[in-house]
């Protein structure tokens, strides 16, 4: 019992808790910083590798209709689906999203990109059939002011008319007329989409913008479905009633036929099956693509031989990393041995030769190799001068696998030498002498006594070099040409050139899994706390 009456145990616990909290409080800022700036991006990338909202966001009505469609029946979807596609495409076209979706689906089925672009250009004509008929019927329908008066609520209309477009004030947000929304539900909803787009995305004055052709076809749909306009007395009621009487004789649009007119591919089952396959919000498509497979109506299947690319690339990355690791062991082992066995002063001097390249900028070393390995470079020049190779048959040392292997072996060699050195430093030289005095030959003494003790160093160095090399980007990009590049170069290509971010994310996720697996092994063998820097 302490003086204040608490037991010793509880006050000890309290002190311990305070200590823990203080430690966590010190760590917290950095932990949050790393979580936000680093872990969140990685999580975002993993999310992107399965994310697929673009299809259902751009074509919400179409994907809903396609849910019940059975592609195996061999029949194209219903006319209602085509009408839904018309509406979706129209909105997407106005918001300039249809090309993005086209390129997304083009990853899965070649030709969709041009199909969408072509359809986007011509989609406007399809709705103008109704627009023209309404406008021919009554000049009322031509004027945007009339539409606003008809569709908008009285309060909003007053606010919109009072608003000065040149002022800094924000345009009053559109509010629908409740009565019209009840009578003409589809028209009102479509008009709201239009108003929202004009006011918020286009940032133009709603009073000056003529409604989309889509609004006219919605109005036709509402009226031909038998909307009850008799009770409506608000603005434009006369025109509405006249239109109601006339719609029966309107020329109608055959959506499936119109789409076929734009491009006959719209009657191709494959196109619709692709849209249907990729309608869910999440997809394994990118991952399948990353291992040369693709989704088909019957499940996953391999891509045709001539489109297979990524498995080969993964194998090449692994194979070249192994070769690089192997040559690092071969070159690093003797150097590690001599550094560990020379007197300290000499060893420290030689260590500088190892640390200097380690500290030199990666770009400097890569540019040095680029300069040295060229056809007209220092190495070829020396070989020609010595007469080893003829002037007209200079060795191709760059822009192929040889270049990548030479340059990366050089760049990663210090990462092999340093762990080897620190392990070899702990092996007492007397063991070797003892083995020899017991009658072992040089080779036996090395192979049976020294080598087994140096294996942890080889393991640590190899995993380190291997992890670093499979994710390398800069050096293969600069000296690898086309045959000496790694999977990381493909990832970069998909991010910056082909813009297939989902595939880049899936390839990255696979690479990340491999690296984390190796890292786990490294932690088990060496322990992450034992990572040393600079000797």
């Amino acid at each position, binding site marked *: 019992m302490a003086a204040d009456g608490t037991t010793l145990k509880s006050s000890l616990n309290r002190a311990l808790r305070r*200590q*823990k909290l203080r430690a*966590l*409080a*010190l*760590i917290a*800022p*950095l*932990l949050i*910083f*790393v979580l936000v*700036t*680093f*872990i969140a*991006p*990685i999580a*975002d*990338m993993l999310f*992107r590798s399965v994310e697929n909202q673009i299809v259902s966001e751009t074509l919400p009505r179409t994907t809903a209709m396609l849910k019940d469609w059975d592609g195996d029946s061999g029949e194209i979807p219903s006319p209602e689906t085509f009408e839904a596609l018309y509406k979706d495409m129209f909105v997407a076209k106005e918001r300039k999203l249809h090309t993005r979706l086209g390129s997304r689906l083009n990853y899965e089925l070649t030709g969709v990109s041009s199909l969408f672009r072509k359809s986007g250009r011509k989609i406007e004509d399809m709705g103008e059939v109704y627009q023209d008929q309404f406008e021919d019927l009554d000049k009322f329908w031509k004027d945007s002011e009339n539409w606003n008066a008809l569709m908008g609520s009285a309060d909003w209309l007053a606010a919109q008319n009072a608003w000065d477009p040149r002022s800094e004030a924000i345009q009053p947000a559109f509010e629908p007329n409740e009565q019209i929304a009840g009578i003409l539900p589809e028209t009102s909803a479509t008009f709201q989409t239009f108003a929202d787009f004009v006011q918020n995305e286009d940032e133009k004055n709603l009073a000056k913008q003529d409604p989309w052709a889509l609004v006219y076809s919605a109005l036709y749909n509402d009226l031909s479905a038998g909307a009850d306009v008799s009770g409506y007395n608000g603005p434009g009621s006369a025109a509405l009633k006249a239109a109601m009487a006339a719609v029966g004789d309107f020329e109608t649009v055959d959506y499936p036929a119109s789409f076929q007119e734009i491009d006959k591919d719209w009657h191709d089952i494959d196109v619709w099956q692709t849209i249907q396959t990729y309608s869910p919000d999440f997809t394994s498509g990118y991952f399948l693509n990353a291992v040369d497979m693709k989704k088909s109506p019957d499940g996953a299947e391999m891509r045709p031989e001539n489109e297979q690319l990524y498995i080969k690339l993964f194998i090449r990355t692994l194979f070249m990393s192994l070769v690089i690791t192997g040559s690092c062991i071969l070159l690093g082992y*003797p*150097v590690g*041995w001599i550094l560990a066995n020379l*007197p300290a002063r000499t060893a420290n001097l*030689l260590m500088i*030769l190892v640390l*200097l390249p380690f*500290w*030199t*900028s990666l*770009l*400097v*070393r890569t*540019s*040095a190799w*680029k*300069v*040295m390995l*060229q056809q*007209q470079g220092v190495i070829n*020049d020396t070989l020609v001068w*010595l*007469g080893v190779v003829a002037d007209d048959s200079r060795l191709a040392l760059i822009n192929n696998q040889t270049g990548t292997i030479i340059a990366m072996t*050089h760049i990663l060699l*210090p990462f092999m030498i340093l762990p080897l050195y620190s392990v070899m430093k702990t092996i007492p030289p007397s063991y070797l002498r003892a083995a020899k005095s017991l009658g072992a030959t*040089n080779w036996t003494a090395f192979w049976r006594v020294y080598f087994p003790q140096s294996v942890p160093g080889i393991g640590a160095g190899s995993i380190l070099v291997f*992890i670093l090399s*499979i*994710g*390398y*980007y*800069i050096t293969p990009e600069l000296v690898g040409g086309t045959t000496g590049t790694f999977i990381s170069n493909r990832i*970069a290509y998909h991010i*910056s050139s082909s813009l297939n971010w989902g595939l880049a*994310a899936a390839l990255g996720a696979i*690479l990340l899994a491999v690296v984390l697996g190796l*890292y786990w092994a490294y932690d088990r063998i060496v322990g992450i*706390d034992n*990572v040393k*820097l*600079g000797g």
Partner: protein
Amino acid sequence: MAALTPISRTPVSFYVPVVAAAGAVAGLLVGTAQGSSLLGIGIGALLMAALAFVTTQVARAETPSRWAMVGLLGIAGFVMGGFAAAIIGALFGWFFGWFSFWLYEGRYRAYVAPYLTPGQVLWHYTFRVICGAILVFLITPILVVMPLSFNAEDFFTFTPEMLRFDPAGYSLKHYEDFFTNSDWQNALANSVKIAPMATLLSVSFGTLAAIGLSQPHVPFRRAIMAILISPMIVPLIISAAGMYFFYSRIGLQGTYVGVVLAHAALGIPFVIITVTATLVGFDNSLTRAAANMGAGPVTTFFRVQMPLILPGVISGGLFAFITSFDEVVVVLFVGSAGQKTLPWQMFTGLREQISPTILAVATILVIISIALLTVVEMLRRRSERLRGMSPG
């Protein structure tokens, strides 16, 4: 190192053939360059054997003989190929003079254990030559880049003028280009703006966290450590891809802040590792003693703890700095043209319009890294001395 074995002179039948063999190799190189390998081998072997015999058995005086060989082969080189060849010849002369007497006097035996067989002695030296070759491989690129950066032509190889040591073959024009070209100067300015900010962030957060991690009772220590170290483990291209996606979502892509944050994240593991390593040797009773004498936690930190761990903090900071200063993959994706750093400029230079100015920049960077390496090494020694871990 004291000699291990008493030495004695070796018989002519041993060292003359060995020198002849070495001469044959040298002759092969010179002969091939001149057009006839076989002739080169023969002349080299005979000439070197004769020289070795004459200097050791007839002249006998070591120092003058060796100088004579340097002079003789230097003149021979000058006759064959001018000034550059004269230097190569003189080097050959120096080597063969040393080699002949090294073998003749039996000095090669002095520093190896007396019980080794001749085969083992041979292996001992062969092994050293192999190691020497590997070490040369390690620094060749740096050695080649430096002289090439003074090239007067826009070539990436040694011009005949350079090989003749003609002053006209050398110039500072690539350095001049670096210091006057606005592209390079902008890139340098960006690097200088980004790296210190990123370093400051990672050092200040990292040091605090390292102190927290070194407390005796930290819950989830392993998991926290794994998260904090992860930027070093995850391949850069993956970090770059993730940051590109995420930062463009939140509007940081292509901004100065985005690049600084990304680089700070990459530098954090280095700060954590070096500072926790320094804190391992930190005596916690010192802080208790300070508290005992009335110092608050802040005073204790700045007056007691900080001076002791400062070497670790500075070398961690240098690691973070060099990480940011050298980094190209992440800035390539997270940055935009406005954040073009020096490595980025070098990268585009190497990929598109390859210009020798890159070599001048490379040389400057090598000099900077030598300076940094020296500072880190000095700090490491100092901190080990402070902790009483090494007598030096």
